[in-house]
């Protein structure tokens, strides 16, 4: 199971990516999962290497930064009550309206690869991702993920 009930923020009413990143960093910091260097590293990284991904159903994003900024592994899932535009990964001129954000926190490249592999498999499962987005209880819906 790659998700945890503690690592969920539902119905987040943030207006901008900056507000969203601040909210995530605050939560991760309370849970002692990150170093102080996390927020600036995350912002820098997202600017140079954007992580928005348009799947077949909804737009998602997977902001992450170097494991050096991370103390504990985990994925913080944030469902937004209003989509926020992210740049599409691999592009400098395409925007994605993002509805769910997965902050991947990994203490090493291997863990990062495992987490990403799992998330990407989930993103490619159209019906599952749609159910997650429309679910009443975000964590309940995510916990049905059996993995690939």
């Amino acid at each position, binding site marked *: 199971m790659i998700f945890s009930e503690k690592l969920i923020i539902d119905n987040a009413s943030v207006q901008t990516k900056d507000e969203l990143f601040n909210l995530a960093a605050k939560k991760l910091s309370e849970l002692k999962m990150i170093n102080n260097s996390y927020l600036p590293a995350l912002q820098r*990284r997202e600017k*140079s*290497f954007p992580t928005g*991904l*348009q*799947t*077949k159903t909804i737009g998602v994003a997977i902001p992450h930064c*170097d494991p050096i900024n991370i103390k504990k592994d985990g994925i913080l899932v944030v469902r937004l009550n209003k989509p926020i535009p992210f740049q*599409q*990964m*691999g*592009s*400098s001129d395409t925007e994605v309206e993002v509805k769910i954000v997965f902050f991947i926190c990994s203490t090493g*490249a291997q863990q*990062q*690869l495992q987490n*990403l*592999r799992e998330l*990407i498999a989930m*993103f*490619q499962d159209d019906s599952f991702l749609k159910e997650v987005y429309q679910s009443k209880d975000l964590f309940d819906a995510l916990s049905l993920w059996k993995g690939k």
Partner: protein
Amino acid sequence: MKKTINLLAVCGSGTVSSTMVAEKAQEYIESLGFNVQAEELNPQQASERIPSGDYDLVVFTSPIPGTYDIPIINATGLLTGIGEEDVFEKIKEAITE
């Protein structure tokens, strides 16, 4: 004797999403009857190494600064599944031309 394709995969860290797209691209290229030698780098390293002529083909999830005379293919579709067939088609064109 199968021809070997030297594949370079590029992402922001040079380790994570590049590994994922490299695996998918490698599997596909092998299915076309080639051997594959795959390597992963970040965009900065890639822009320094591509001119060495060590690679036949580059797939990326983070754009690489500069212009090069080998095929450079945006492979983000291999992560989302959207446009995956287009990516494979471009890879095929690049190695069979």
